[in-house]
């Protein structure tokens, strides 16, 4: 078989694409994934990082709620190193209707979500940061999940099962014979190189951009881009997820993750043209702060680290192009059946929480069409790195008396941390002090995880995500990348891009310590280092 021929081609390097590639590869298919940017650049990397219990949807969208809680329990088993089992609270404030709580708990029970009404005093003990004025609380099995890590681990496992990944590769057109798609034309956006790939099936997992992919193939999916803005605070103010117990609304979820916490979101319909470059507006920042403080009052005196926004890939029901009846449920379209176009499947809708189920649904359809009879195993097979449930136990097994940096590394990589060289001081040297990322870990990511740019490196290692926002680690890591890619000139431009990208999340909130840090960083790069 030709090197450009596969059983299935997956378009999109977000969590849906990566999960689908993993599932297909585990069922023995020869897979290729193409992504026009880096992994997790769309909605995958631009959300709360909330491991939903499903409680949020219990009242209005019971089907999604049931999917969420089932996947929640599965992800705890298969993605341990990507998950923090924090639990969650749904609080009722004096301005909310306490009667909603009973309806909410009932709906949770019907969906199979363990929801326990607790005393407000108990809630304050469980989560000291919670608004002390709460008049009601319900405990649910929420948690937090690192979507970058989850996406990278899925892709890595697909590769371990023989899958191929081409990042920064854009689909420029479909190869078509009559009513059948035979393959894709692609162009590498970095090298300009063009290539054709062939497969009897192509899965469109492009998230909101899947709209255009479908259009390119001549079929329509009525997608509805809904922008959501979020703020990251520089401390982990809360250790338990805090939600408002009311009909889902703006800025009513506060999620702890690693060393920070995230408040969100808003929901605004935006035109497709804006999906590539969503910016957070001052009004959104004000709203997020005002509402966030109601969940945890100490947020008012906590430094804001970044503002960011993502676009939810919502799908209008087929006969409802207005977008009024939008569910968060999974949409799997067989375009052969639906539009008479052979060779294309679209998997969309859904959410980060249900990515694995989306992948399973799409892969089942792929297998059916290819006549492959092999059951899905992704619900029971741990992702690479997740074979142990506690990162502390992992760190101890590898190093006996692990340093804080080694523990941090084990929390990022899980059992895969044992592959990072730490035997000599040069590999142990820290490049990013905020997140304690070493030379060894960065070089391993560059070697094995398809890293082209500093921003790619950030998504895989967390460099530049800490309180200094890349002030020091950016140019240190740039030297390592320049060496690995043997090109300083490109790296110089990459460093400038990275700083611009970090600034994009800082300027909407540039006051207080953020402005202070910004003054320092901008002065140092411009006038001291001479970038």
């Amino acid at each position: 078989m030709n090197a450009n021929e596969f059983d299935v081609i997956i378009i999109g390097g977000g969590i849906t694409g990566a999960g689908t590639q993993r599932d297909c590869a585990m069922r023995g298919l020869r897979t290729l994934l193409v992504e026009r940017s880096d992994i997790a650049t769309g909605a995958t990397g631009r959300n709360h990082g909330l491991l939903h219990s499903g409680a949020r949807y219990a009242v209005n969208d019971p089907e999604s709620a049931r999917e969420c809680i089932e996947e929640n329990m599965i992800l705890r088993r298969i993605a341990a190193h990507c998950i923090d089992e924090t639990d969650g609270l749904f609080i009722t404030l004096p301005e909310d209707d306490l009667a909603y709580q009973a309806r909410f708990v009932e709906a949770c029970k019907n969906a199979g979500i363990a929801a326990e009404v607790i005393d407000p005093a108990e809630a304050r003990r469980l989560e000291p940061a919670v608004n002390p004025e709460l008049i009601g609380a319900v405990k649910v099995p929420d948690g937090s999940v690192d979507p970058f890590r989850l996406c990278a681990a899925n892709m890595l496992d697909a590769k371990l099962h023989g899958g191929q990944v081409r990042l920064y590769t854009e689909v420029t057109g479909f190869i078509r014979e009559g009513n059948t798609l035979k393959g894709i034309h692609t162009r590498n956006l970095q090298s300009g190189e063009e290539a054709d790939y062939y497969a009897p099936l192509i899965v469109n997992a492009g998230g909101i951009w899947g709209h255009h992919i479908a259009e390119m193939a001549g079929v329509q999916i009525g997608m509805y881009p809904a922008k959501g803005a979020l703020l990251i605070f520089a401390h982990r103010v809360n250790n338990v997820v805090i939600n408002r117990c009311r009909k889902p609304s703006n800025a009513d979820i506060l999620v702890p993750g690693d060393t920070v916490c995230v408040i969100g979101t808003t929901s605004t319909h935006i035109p497709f043209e804006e999906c590539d470059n969503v910016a957070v507006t001052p009004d959104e920042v004000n709203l997020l702060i005002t509402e966030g403080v109601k969940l945890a009052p100490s947020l008012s005196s906590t430094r804001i680290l970044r503002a960011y926004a993502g676009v939810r890939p919502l799908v209008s029901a087929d006969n409802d192009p207005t977008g009024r009846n939008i569910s968060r449920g999974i949409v799997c379209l067989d375009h052969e059946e639906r539009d008479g176009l052979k060779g294309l499947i679209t998997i969309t809708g859904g959410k980060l929480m249900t990515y694995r189920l989306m992948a399973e649904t799409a892969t089942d359809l792929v297998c059916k069409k290819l006549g492959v009879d092999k059951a899905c195993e992704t619900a029971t097979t741990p992702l690479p790195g997740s074979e142990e449930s506690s990162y502390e136990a992992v760190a101890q097994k590898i190093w006996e008396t692990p340093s804080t940096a080694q523990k941090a590394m084990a929390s990022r990589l899980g059992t895969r941390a044992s592959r990072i060289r730490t035997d000599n001081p040069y590999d142990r040297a820290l490049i990013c002090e905020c997140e304690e990322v070493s030379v060894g870990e960065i070089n391993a990511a560059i070697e094995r995880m398809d890293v082209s740019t500093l921003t790619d490196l950030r998504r895989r290692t967390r460099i530049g995500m800490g309180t200094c926002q890349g002030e020091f680690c950016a140019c240190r890591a740039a030297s390592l990348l320049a060496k690995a890619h043997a090109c300083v000139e490109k790296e110089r431009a990459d460093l400038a891009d990275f700083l611009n990208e970090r600034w994009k999340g800082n300027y909407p909130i540039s006051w207080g310590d953020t402005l202070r840090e910004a003054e320092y960083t901008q002065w140092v790069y411009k006038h001291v280092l001479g970038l």
Partner: protein
Amino acid sequence: MKFDTVIIGGGLAGLVAGISLQRKGQNTAIVSTGQNALHFFSGSFESLQEAPPEMHSLFEEAGIRLHYREGVRLMPLGTFRPSCLSLEDISLFPSEKFARKVLVVNFMGYHDFFSSFLAEGLEKQGMQCRIRFLNLPELEKLEQSPSEMRSVQIARTMDRIWEKVVQEVRILLKDEDAVLLPQVFGLQDTSVPGRIKQGIPAQVVFCGTLPPSVPGIRTQMLLKRRYEVLGGTYLMGDEALEAHVHDGVVHSIRTKNLDSHYLEGSHFILASGGFFSKGLRSNPFSIYEPVFGLDVEYNPDRNAWYDKAFAADQPYMGYGVKTDAQLHALADGIPLKNLYAIGSILGQTHPELGSAAGLAIRSALEVSAQIKK
């Protein structure tokens, strides 16, 4: 406690004002939080070419030698910028191509000196480069700890073993006519950079590292030492909290450490720096000066504070405390008779005084002259 002049801020502007006033016979005090822009000083006095007459002797007496020649200086990421008045160990070249072949020397495991960026920058100018890493057993202790290989820690070791570096470089040197070294020499012993230059048979160029800046910390140390030799009182690690002002005259300030022992003065100088040094503070609604509540020139629309491009000139960096032509700071539009603002807290409100280190020096000397008039 009563002084002729109380200075708030112990960075470049505050120290130069303090030394200048002590030289003229005043009894002054400096209140310093310990955090100032000298920690990331490039070694070049932006916006100055020639030293004002008083600056020259003031620095000379502090043991700091300066020089200027028209041309360019080399930046740590391998680019060139026009020359300005610089510390003696900052190399200034008539043009970018300062050598034929350059040996770039770094230390094994040191990530804060950008040897590959430098080599590429020099090659672009037609110079051949060879990068070599020194593996010195004396640095092993630092290497063992993952965050110890930083400029100041290395500089402390180098004060002891710089002669060994000279020997190693001599061994490495082939036909190169220039050697590029990280700026981690002469933290305590200021003669070291000069002695390294004498010991290596090629043009020796020191180039900057990631902050903290070794020449900056050295400059701070020497100026502070000189200030104290002249009898100045440097209150390290203290912070001005509030001021007592009556009828447009400042009487005293309260500090964190001295609390009820107010610092009284005939004159006050505010040299507390920009946002980084906390001379200016901000919240979502305003930019303000925290000690005296002075008038600040800024755009009340917070979306106008920044430019979306990281590398652009940022409007917020231009904001500063309002003053009259003699640099008396304004409160509610009225100049306080005995309070002057100098250095970065002025932002770009006085473009004729230059920017950064140049602004610090010019405004400090001007205010010192005003006070002694």
